[in-house]
């Protein structure tokens, strides 16, 4: 999978990194159990500090997206993610609230907003087949 890092973006590099790996898993571009580059190799390829990549990997590991083994290095979680349980739903809800709130403040139409969510959702599920 190709990862693209924008250096001018307001989004911190480690967030861009972990977001794209999660997106890769959602779209199926990253297969379960697929090896990921080591922290050192990825940092070298991007020409950035080791800590930045480490931060992304630590976050992904804590959230259960990837595994980091001493010998085999980093790899995409081999088994499927746990289902969207109550805990996930409540976390998602609280994370989404500010986005919805800002859309309301800017008088974005409800259907418009839901449409956008649907389009993004389908971007990931379509490529999976």
């Amino acid at each position, binding site marked *: *999978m*190709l*990862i*693209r*890092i*924008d*250096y*001018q973006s307001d989004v911190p590099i480690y967030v861009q990194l972990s977001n794209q*790996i999660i997106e*890769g898993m959602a779209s199926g571009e*990253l297969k379960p159990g*697929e*090896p*990921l*580059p*080591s922290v*050192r*190799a*990825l*940092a*070298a*390829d*991007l*020409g*950035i*500090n*080791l800590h930045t990549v480490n931060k992304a990997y630590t976050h992904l590991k804590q959230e259960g997206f990837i595994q980091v083994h001493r010998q085999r290095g980093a790899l995409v979680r081999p088994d499927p993610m746990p289902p969207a349980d109550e805990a996930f739903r409540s976390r998602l809800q609280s994370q989404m609230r500010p986005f919805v709130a800002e859309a309301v403040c800017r008088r974005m139409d409800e259907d418009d907003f839901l449409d956008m969510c649907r389009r993004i959702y389908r971007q990931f599920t379509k490529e999976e087949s």
Partner: protein
Amino acid sequence: MNGIGYALIALVTLPLGAIITFIPYLTRRTESFGVSIEENYFNDPEISGMRRTYASLTGAVSLLVIIASLIAAARLDEEQLGWLMPAAVGVMLAVHLALYLRFHFRMRALKKERGLMSAELQQTVVDTAFYQEKRAYPMVWLIPHLLVAAATAWICAANYDAFPEQLIMQYGLDGTPTRVVDKSWGNVLFPVWMQLLLIFIFAIVNYSISASKQQIDAANPRASLRRNLIFRRKWSAFTLTMGFLLTVLFGAIPLQQLYGFDIGILLALFLTFVAIILLWAVRLGFVTGQGGSRIRLPEDASAAAAGKVNRDDDKYWILGQFYYNPDDPALFLEKRFGIGWTMNFARPLAWIIFLAPVLLVAALIFLVERG
């Protein structure tokens, strides 16, 4: 001065002249004279004019130097001849460097003045599967080299008594011995030490080809990735073959000393091997270009550019030539001007690797000199 001397001068200076003359055309299109620009400015009249001026000046000077050395070779005595080749190569490299610096600074000014690199579109693209790809030929390809070295060592050791009491260590350009030493284990085995040193150096080079960081073009990631892999494999094959030829060459030295066949045969072998290596290197340079940038791929026509440009990392390149980036854990990376790889000199290991061969050769010569 005999034919072999002329051939040697031509053999070294002609490929060198060709390479330094055409370097701007072999480098990536996103890097002009060590300055990163957007690829679409590569054919800008001002920038292609700079390439033409550089190439015609360097080419003209190289040609003059080559002709002058061939003429001078006929008139110089033995001692002066020893200096001819280093002097010719030195002049060519000095001119190359001076012109490079001139155009490097002009390019920098031009970039600032005309804004040849968009800040908003900059991106670095990496493939997470890159290190699963075959980037270089594996190290088992050095086994033939080691076998040749072992055979050479065995021949030297088994026939130690048969070697002449005096060994010729050096020949002049005209084929006469210029340095003779008394036989000792150290200098009988000198070719073997050289073989082992060469194998060690080529192992490091081959490793650096496979370990060098991925540098793919953000405007066309998939195609540039494939080009880069072809580039690495071709140069890895070249490195390993060159290592083998040189190992064989050093293996022939004790055979000549033992059986006393004509030194001309050894020189002919040397010239042939050097010719093969240099011509192959020049050919490969023109076929691949830096990073594989000149390799044509069948899917090129259909590939859509992503509208992005590479990250501007000019500030990490001192004079556009030396990479110094303490934040980057990479040790090996591709050069910016020319073909091949360089190192991140912010890493101490880079200095060790840079100086180790020099120190090893010096130590070897010192030890053998003392016998």
